[in-house]
């Protein structure tokens, strides 16, 4: 299954914020976590994560910290801020509302669910 590009883009911010809410992290690890969480179905172009992270930083949702990695390279860690948590909570409410609405309507139309089951 391929997830639509717009959907991938829309879910990127809450996903990254939620992963950072679990604890500080860096680019590659965030991306790996996204892959694991979605069972590989959310396909991101690796590079695109970084402009997104920079945007979150400009909005004050995350702070950054350059540190040395175990391999001795310099690595940028991202830490979620209070504002970031606020934004995440807000996103959570929005997404819940959307999934609730979709669930309700899909439960009503039994044919759709059967079709999805066959697929």
């Amino acid at each position, binding site marked *: 299954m391929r997830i639509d590009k717009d959907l991938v883009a829309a879910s990127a911010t809450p996903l990254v914020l939620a992963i950072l809410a679990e604890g500080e992290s860096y680019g590659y690890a965030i991306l790996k976590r996204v892959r694991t969480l979605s069972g590989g179905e959310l396909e991101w172009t690796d590079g695109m994560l*970084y402009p997104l992270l920079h945007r979150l930083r400009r909005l004050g949702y995350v702070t950054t910290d350059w540190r040395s990695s175990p391999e001795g390279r310099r690595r940028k860690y991202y830490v979620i801020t209070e504002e970031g948590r606020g934004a995440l909570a807000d996103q959570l409410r929005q997404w819940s509302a959307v999934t609730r609405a979709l669930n309700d309507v899909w439960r009503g139309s039994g044919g759709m669910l059967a079709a999805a089951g066959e697929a």
Partner: protein
Amino acid sequence: MESVETQIAEWRAYVANATGVNGRDVDELEDHLRHQIAELSSVGLSDDEAFLVAVKRMGDLDDLSREFAREHSGRLWKQLVLSGDAEPARAATGWVEALAFAAAAAIVIQIARVTAGFPDEEPTWFERNLGLFVLPFLAGYFARRRQLDLRHWALTAVPFALAALLVNLYPYDADSDTEILVSLALPVALWFVVAYPYMGGTVRFHERRMDFVRFTGEWFIYYVLIALGGGVLMGLTGAILEPAGIDVDRVAEWVLPSGAAGAVIVAAWLVESKQRVVENMAPVLTMLFTPLFAVMLVCSAVVYAVTGPGAAFDRELLSVFDALLVVVLALVLYGMSAREPSTTPQWMDGIQLVAVVGALLLDLMVLGEMIARIGDLGFTPNRTAALGLNLVLLVNLVGAAWLSARFLRRRTTFHRLERWQTTYLPVFALFAAVVVVVFPPLFGFS
């Protein structure tokens, strides 16, 4: 076969050349790439294969560069016009275009000057319409450069047409104060109209508004440089030709207006294409002058607080103060636009706050004096305009001071501060428009 290290180094150099990506970003991307290569190697791929897959996963460099550019438009506001999706940035070498528009402005102002008989006579319509002789060409230049469609061209033209009608149909009295105010406010209002084509036919995006602020600052610097060069040229020409019996003043009458009008467009073109020069110079200038202005503002505020404003504030001094406040605001705004938004508070931000607070104190004193004057002598067009300008500035400065203080104490992000200023920009435009449109009928064209 190249080692994977050489390949990474080459990739790095290639990415570093992309617009919008700076050295730190490349470090971060390289860390990512190395991670990916290590992981792919550990599942059995050869180094070469791992490198290729990792680079492929990183994505198309053009897309990446564009995303970075969108996010950090401040870094490269230069080449990239961020309109449309895959639209390539236009080559910076549109000098023929720029020259054509500059020549058109130069010719139009010359025709107007000859018709007006300036400088032997100084008909007020000439001064009142000055902005309309030049700025439509600047707007046209940007509309063309941004490849706007017909609808946006029309939307750009409408304010100019309205302004032309309004300014020339109002029946001003002789020696009318409102007419002088109109000739002062119209260029400002029209400058904001130029923002529309500059931003690619939209005014919604705050990042682009900041780009326009940046453009205004750089344009000003280039214009001053051109004016200085032009002054030297005129001076030398005069010194050389005067002995030959040529009346240099007559020559200057012809050259000066056209040169000044053409330079408006040439300076804009320079900002668009040769930014790297100014880019290095402009932040240095703000760095230099923001502290000096901060010291000067605080000293003046203290002096006037001690001596009491009272008699010292006559009409002329009030307008000097207004000019000073506008300059300070421009400096702060420009310093803001030149700043990397994601860094933490630095000493410069502190100094900016000092400057803003100093300006705020002065503005309050001027405002108090002005209200007293209006209380004694009543409203006139000049006093009302000055009062309005001071109120507009006061609100802006209070907001800016409050947000910078919070930013310095790390209670808020720089983004908020930037947002405040970009949200406020239309207020300035609106005020200038009100002076042009509402003031003359309000005061009976007196």
